[in-house]
């Protein structure tokens, strides 16, 4: 799933800085696309001595005026004489912008994107094959993050941060309901959620659209199911295990009613998803470490714990993160590689840690004080070695955010029975995977 912007401002369009380009773009139509593609490449007017680079990232990382990433770019320029211009786009629009600019012949030299989008960009040859450059350093990163950026044997991006999904539970609400410990199994979770639901309070949180499909995968894996078959050409999530998991997941809302109906509006940002938990209207939610900083900002006094997701037949969670790649528009890939390898190196881990409270995708982070000194981070870092990355197939974005998001939408809008929606989605996904 694209990691959505997590700047905490409540409503969907959280980014105060939706650029003029963004608005223009939304003006829609194919014609507008061409015009924008043409102006995509004038962002990199840096005046470095040895050269200049442009980096596009979501506003989560790029920030508005200043950000840790911009500061790091400044440090690099001061040290190496290569200026790096950082440009931010709303997380939901980033890939559209990158695609438009690159197919139009312009665009940035470097992109920082959610790793689940790397296969699509790599297969489209919008990213440069970095296999030979990454190979010597690949052991420094979590294997899952490298695998997620590898499609058909070619690796297209260097891992930046790593994340995975865990369960957050509200200690105060649990205490009031007389529940002493967070759930460790599906049955525990359902029982707790039911006890925690009453009046305007609900036990568990879900998301709509792509947020719903993204958060379904751990349930599938926990029930022993698989997303795709081993060849990566056929959907496997419609297995008996998949159907059982899908039903359990959907019924949290449909029949058990332990989910606030307002989750139907969680279509645009993680902020929308986090809000009920932050305001203590929901007692539990599954999310990655990108939810931690907004919670701390929005409700500093919130007492919550972080534990691994409840297990069923087995425990499992989903691995993701952000990765840095060099685009087809880069005139000097060596110059771009110089910056990328510096940014993802051990010395720059503090940029992610201090600036974003994120866990670097480097294995050496496991023993660091940053991780061991924080119980929540410890859970995430421990899971990073066992968490499963999503299939690295070029059509992944379309399957997760198109096919599965639509299927989930039909289920929660009660337009289709869960089993039928899942079966149809599997057929559609298989069709896409076969390239027809």
């Amino acid at each position, binding site marked *: 799933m694209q990691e959505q912007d997590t700047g905490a401002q409540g409503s969907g369009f959280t980014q105060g800085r939706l650029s003029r380009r963004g608005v223009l773009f939304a003006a829609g139509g194919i*014609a507008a696309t061409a015009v924008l593609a043409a102006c995509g490449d004038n962002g990199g007017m840096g005046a470095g001595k040895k050269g200049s680079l442009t980096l596009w990232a979501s506003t989560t990382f790029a920030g508005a005026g200043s950000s840790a990433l911009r500061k790091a770019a400044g440090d690099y320029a001061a040290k190496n004489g290569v200026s790096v211009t950082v440009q931010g786009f709303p997380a939901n629009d980033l890939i559209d912008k990158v695609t438009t600019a690159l197919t139009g012949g312009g665009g940035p030299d470097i992109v920082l994107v959610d790793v689940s989008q790397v296969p699509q960009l790599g297969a489209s040859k919008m990213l440069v094959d970095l296999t030979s450059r990454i190979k010597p350093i690949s052991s420094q990163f979590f294997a899952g993050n490298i695998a997620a950026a590898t499609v058909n044997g070619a690796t297209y991006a260097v891992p930046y941060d790593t994340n995975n999904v865990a369960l957050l539970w509200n200690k105060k609400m649990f205490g009031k309901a007389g529940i002493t410990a967070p759930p460790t199994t599906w049955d525990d979770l359902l029982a707790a959620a039911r006890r925690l639901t009453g009046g305007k309070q609900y036990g568990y949180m879900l998301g709509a*659209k792509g947020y719903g499909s993204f958060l379904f995968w751990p349930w599938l894996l926990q029930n022993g199911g698989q997303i795709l078959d081993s060849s990566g050409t056929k959907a496997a999530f419609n297995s008996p295990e998949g159907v059982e998991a899908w039903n359990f997941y959907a019924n949290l809302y449909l029949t058990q009613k332990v989910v606030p109906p307002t989750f*139907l509006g969680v279509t645009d940002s993680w902020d929308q998803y986090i809000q009920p938990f932050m305001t203590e209207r929901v007692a539990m939610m599954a999310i990655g470490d990108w939810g931690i900083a907004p919670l701390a900002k929005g409700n500093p006094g919130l007492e919550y714990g972080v534990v691994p997701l409840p297990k069923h037949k087995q425990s499992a969670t989903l691995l993701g993160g952000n990765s840095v790649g060099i685009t087809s528009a880069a005139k000097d890939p060596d110059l771009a590689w110089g910056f990328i390898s510096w940014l993802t190196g051990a010395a720059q881990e503090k940029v992610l840690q201090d600036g974003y409270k994120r866990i670097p995708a480097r294995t050496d982070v496991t023993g660091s004080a940053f991780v061991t000194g924080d119980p929540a981070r410890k859970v995430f870092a421990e899971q990073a070695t066992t968490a499963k990355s999503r299939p690295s197939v070029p059509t992944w974005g379309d399957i997760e955010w198109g096919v599965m998001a639509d299927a989930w939408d039909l289920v929660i809008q009660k337009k289709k029975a869960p089993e039928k929606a899942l079966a149809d989605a599997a057929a559609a996904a298989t069709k896409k995977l076969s390239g027809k």
Partner: protein
Amino acid sequence: MAVTHVKRPATNRAERPATVRRRRRRVRPHWWYLAPALILMAGVLGYPVVDAIWTSFQHNVLTHPDADHFAGLDNYRSVLTDGALLSAVWHTVVWGAANLVLQLVLGFALALLMHQRLAGRAVFRSVVIIPWVVPSIVVALVWRYLLDPTSGPLNQLLTGLGIVSTSPQWLADQSTAMPVLILLSTWKWTPFVAVILLAGLQTVPKELHEAAMLDGAGRIQRLRYVVIPGIRTSIALAGLLTVGYSINNFNGIWMFTKGGPAGSTETLTTLAYRYAFTEFDLGRAASIAMILFAFLLITSSVYFYVVEGRKGSKS
């Protein structure tokens, strides 16, 4: 002209072909002066259209960069057999028609109000056009906040007054999403229609009103027999622009629902966008755009035919 020719002496008649030729030659330089602008326009307007038409016949999927080839009508066949297209066309029709009717009716009412000699008319006129001049993104931000199911003022008011017991999910419920979007779009664009109609109203001569009054025409009769015929051209223009703008209005949908929930607000523009940016399939996206193009061409031709036809029969 014809009259002068007839009155000319016969000797001139023999020279006429030369005059015509010279006249033609004289026209030529104008085109040269216009050429830079025309070429620029052709590049900016023509090229993307031609390129989109061309793309719509190509297999052009970004994730298969080496598989581009001429695909004939495959894209069209594929989107026409996809159930998504039919519902998108239906939503586009509903969206266009509802916007047209609401905006024309409300816009006309507003224009009549703005045309009155009221105290503070200048202020009223400025206030009315505010929704139209506010950027779409700001409109989206403000309305999404106002309509937020839990923290939005609208639902707090409704639940507070006991009008509803459970908070309506305006944009997340498939039964309310489209009507809400139509109302929002009407809110934003009606001022534009009102301004066009107001300009029309100002051209209706006062004498006609006075004459009608002398003939004993009441308010309604004057509206029907003086005002509406007098601004027919403005109504036609406003209607055509409204249809065109609404059907092409991508912001008004994408910024609120992205075509959801469960496809209930998917129109041809959002569908084309999804094909291009979720599926990375530019060929099929272009074929949807072409279908939209044809759709608009037919709609506006029919519209012209109806409006012009009526004009012909009456005058």
